[in-house]
């Protein structure tokens, strides 16, 4: 059913693009044009983004400091009253949770788990984390292999629930929130700009992830509330695009500062 729906979307988009092709050649300049091989048939596409945990592990191994003061304060939870804000900040808090775990901050880990769970409950995303799962975790506490299989099961249940309830549109929002939080924490970990700094290089790499995140939004139904978020991300992407012109360095100080300011502004609006 879901595949059919996506297929319809893609068909409409394709037909729409063909119809509007001649009329809007200027507007089409920013479209991704695939080679003949990739556009010859309708394809099922999965868009993936590396988990922020990978970035956090990289930061941890680079001996960056744990920056508790830059996490989204737990108290902010009360501000999130709309579905979009809740979804974005479920991502933000989950990212903070991952950061705390990677940096072995157990007290903060528990606090951020609690607040993320509350937002997940608010969004009705608890099906993968119900009492049965908790009981299975308890029963397998000494068997790490089983525990990881249980988490796989819980995930599958949650996703099935999301799809069945038509809540799959929340996923890009959560991913966006988690991603922007991870980039912000990476930015905060850079004490002084140096184009050779490995964290700075990783921040420059995030343009690739942003590209995939923006791709994800193409597959969700058009919700006017998404437009402002997408526009912010597109604006950030325009700054990342400037890196493509570089020949000798990956990122210049001016480009870095532009990206930093945009990330900070987007993140402030997400968590505000």
């Amino acid at each position: 059913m879901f595949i059919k729906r996506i297929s319809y979307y893609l068909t409409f988009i394709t037909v729409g693009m063909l119809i509007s092709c001649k009329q809007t050649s200027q507007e089409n300049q920013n479209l991704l044009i695939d080679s003949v091989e990739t556009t010859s048939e309708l394809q099922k596409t999965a868009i993936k983004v590396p988990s922020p945990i990978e970035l956090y592990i990289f930061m941890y191994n680079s001996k960056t400091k744990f920056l508790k003061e830059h996490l989204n304060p737990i108290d902010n939870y009360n501000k999130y009253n709309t579905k979009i804000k809740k979804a974005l900040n479920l991502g933000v808090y989950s990212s903070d949770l991952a950061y705390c775990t990677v940096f072995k901050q157990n007290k903060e880990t528990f606090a951020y788990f609690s607040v993320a769970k509350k937002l997940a409950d608010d969004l009705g995303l608890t099906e993968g984390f119900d009492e049965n799962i908790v009981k299975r975790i308890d029963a397998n506490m000494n068997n790490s292999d089983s525990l990881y299989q249980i988490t796989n099961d819980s995930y599958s249940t949650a996703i099935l629930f999301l799809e069945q309830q038509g809540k799959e549109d929340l996923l890009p929002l959560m991913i966006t929130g988690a991603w922007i939080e991870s980039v912000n924490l990476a930015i905060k970990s850079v004490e002084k700009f140096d184009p050779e700094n490995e964290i700075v290089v990783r921040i420059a790499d995030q343009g690739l992830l942003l590209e995939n995140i923006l791709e994800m939004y193409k597959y969700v139904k058009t919700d006017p509330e998404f437009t402002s978020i997408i526009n912010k991300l597109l604006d950030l992407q325009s700054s990342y695009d400037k890196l493509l012109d570089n020949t000798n360095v990956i990122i210049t100080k001016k480009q870095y500062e532009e990206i930093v300011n945009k990330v900070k502004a987007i993140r402030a609006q997400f968590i505000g």
Partner: protein
Amino acid sequence: MITMRTKIILVSLVSLMFVTRHVLSQCERKSYCDDYMEDYDFRSQSSYGKLSPGDTSSVNVVLYGNQTYRIFVCNDPKLGTVNWKVVIPERKTKRTINKIKKDTVLIYETNEYGDYKTDAEGNLIIKSRQINIDTILDTERITIDKVIYDSKQQNKDPYFEITPQKSGRYIIRVAVPAGDPKYSGCVNVYVGRKAVGSKSLIKKGSISKYSN
């Protein structure tokens, strides 16, 4: 005990956050080629889906520079030999000046940590305004597939390994051979990052339906 349980649930919850847009139908996790797993972590960007004969599918991933990855595709044997390629979507850009814009840039108030402050309604608080002259460029992007692995042309390693020098986007393109269209089976695309260090969240040889 609580910490352990918290961590397990944490992995589940965090994984949920980072699952991607998945237009492949959900597929029961089946590992058709456990032997290829070795010490790679497959949880982040692997993809599992049910496909029918004649179907094609793509999985778009990002691989970080200086990390080693192993990519392979395994499927329900009833589907026959599924062919797959790893391609780099080589992006060529053409930039042209659209206009030169004079803009008023708003400078926002920040707190002691350098983060932007917001008012009661969540809006950024304006501190001052600055005039900026900016050149607006149009970016035309054209991507062309550069095939770096084709399962048809391989007769030794059933998987593809790569350690990119710099981070990049990669696409795994899968094509199921023709057959009975009424039948569908699982096709699993595994993208594993070589486990480095002893971080507890890196579970060697891990596979799951999600990214963690």
